[in-house]
């Protein structure tokens, strides 16, 4: 999933304090799972904003909605008839949802209510960690199912570096060394000899380096 983290309420207040009627829009997908922008968080943020503005003596109306997804036309269209009632929207979707909302409702200011962090997993409730950076050319088949691009601080394709210490990365004792994990698993799979194959220089053109990306699938296109 796409993992996001809540923005500090002060930052959100600062963005919306000049409006009279605002909509908090949640998303029922990734940000719900990572407890940053689902229906529950929409309710909590809306209540906090109402309370704040009431205490400030400001008459600002705060409404709530949570869409099934904010990255699809179909669900964003559900707001078509009501969007004009609002001076601004705070989207608690990831940056993808915020932008798609802004593209669709061109004349309505849309503000981000979360910081979009990475593509990752729930390690345990309250702890999420990165697993993929969407490089566009997956090499997991060569690296025992552990991605050195997203999990090694230096993105080394031929690691580990000299800073790997007792299974941990040189930048933090809280971070596993990706190459230690790769080697452990190669051993488990009885494939440690593959370690000595030199990974070739990567073509980064399918990654961020190549500019904004698109996937066009003629077979499913209508």
């Amino acid at each position, binding site marked *: 999933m796409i993992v996001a983290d809540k923005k500090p309420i002060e930052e959100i207040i600062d963005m919306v304090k000049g409006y009279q009627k605002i909509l908090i829009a949640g998303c029922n997908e990734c940000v719900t799972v990572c407890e940053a922008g689902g229906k529950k968080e929409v309710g909590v943020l809306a209540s906090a904003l109402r309370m704040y503005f009431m205490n400030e003596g400001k008459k600002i109306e705060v409404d709530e909605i949570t869409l099934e997804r904010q990255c699809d036309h179909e669900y964003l269209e559900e707001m078509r008839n009501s969007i004009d009632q609002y001076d601004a929207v705070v989207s608690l979707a990831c940056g993808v949802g915020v932008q798609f909302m802004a593209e669709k409702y061109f004349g309505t200011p849309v503000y981000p209510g979360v910081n979009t962090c990475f593509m990752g997993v729930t390690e345990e409730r309250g702890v999420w960690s990165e697993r993929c950076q969407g490089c566009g050319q997956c090499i997991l088949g060569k690296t025992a199912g552990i991605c050195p691009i997203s999990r090694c601080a*230096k993105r*080394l394709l031929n690691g580990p570096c*000299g800073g*790997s210490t007792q299974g941990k990365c040189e930048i933090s004792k809280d971070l596993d060394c990706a190459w230690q994990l790769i080697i452990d698993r190669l051993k488990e799979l009885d494939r440690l000899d593959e370690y000595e194959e030199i*990974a070739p220089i990567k073509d980064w053109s399918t990654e961020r380096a190549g500019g904004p990306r698109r996937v066009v699938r003629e077979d499913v296109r209508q």
Partner: protein
Amino acid sequence: MSAKTPSRLEKILDSGQLAVTSECGPPRGSDPEAITKKAEMIKDHVDAINITDNQTSVTRLSSLASCIHLKLMGLEPTLQMVVRDRNRIALQSDILGAASFDIHNILCLSGDHQVFGDSSQGQNVFDLDSMQLIQTVRLMRDEGKFLGGDDIKRPPKMFVGAAANPFADPFEIRVPRLAKKIAAGVEFIQTQCIYNLDKFELWMKQARDRGLHEKVYILAGVTPFKSAGMAKYMKNRVPGMDVPDEVVKRMAGVSKENQPEEGVNICVETIQRLKECEGVRGFHIMAIEWEEKVPEIVERSGLYPRPKDL
């Protein structure tokens, strides 16, 4: 192994004599004397001088510019180059820049993560890794080609080195990793500072068991401790460093004013023991901001005078 470049370091190693290299860290400013003074202190006692490349990710005068200062003094520099800060365009461009000044040694490194330095909020690059940088220099030198496939006019003639850390984890892949660097085309290795001699000798034995000591020149890395505090710091705070307790105890066991001498003693003893270790072809003395001690270490270790007229 026979010499393929005009590198003096390569010729010395090729002749079978123990080589001695050292290194200078460039200043955090633009005064060239900060480099040339350090080089003056050590120039008669070493065969080549590494210039570090923004080590520990602290911004400094560039490695390439510093190497040029050494060339202008008639000395032999080894250009350290990390892949942290440069993409493949900049790496190849700087290699050509160095080659244009006839800099004949390069050390291919990944580089410390930027989080350790003065620019922890900066981007890193890591377009290539150190293994792939070795391949790149060899391609440029041996085939006269850029990574993009075009021909290079007057290709670089560089003796290609890399680092090896026998003490990082996991230990079991430290020799396979050396083998991998050799397969990538590395010709000399400078190791991480050695304090745990037993572990280093085990690593060397495993390297010899695979015949790797005959495929690459290994220079054993040493760093004299200036104080017991430095020993403790290196033990506890520097990633990938293995300082046994008894070494820290030995440093702490002498009075503060005698600690620098004890640090040099340990360094000299390390070199003397490792001279007997088969496969060690020389020493890389990293006297961090203590360059004035290099001549004494070299002399006391029986590595002086250095070869002339090769």
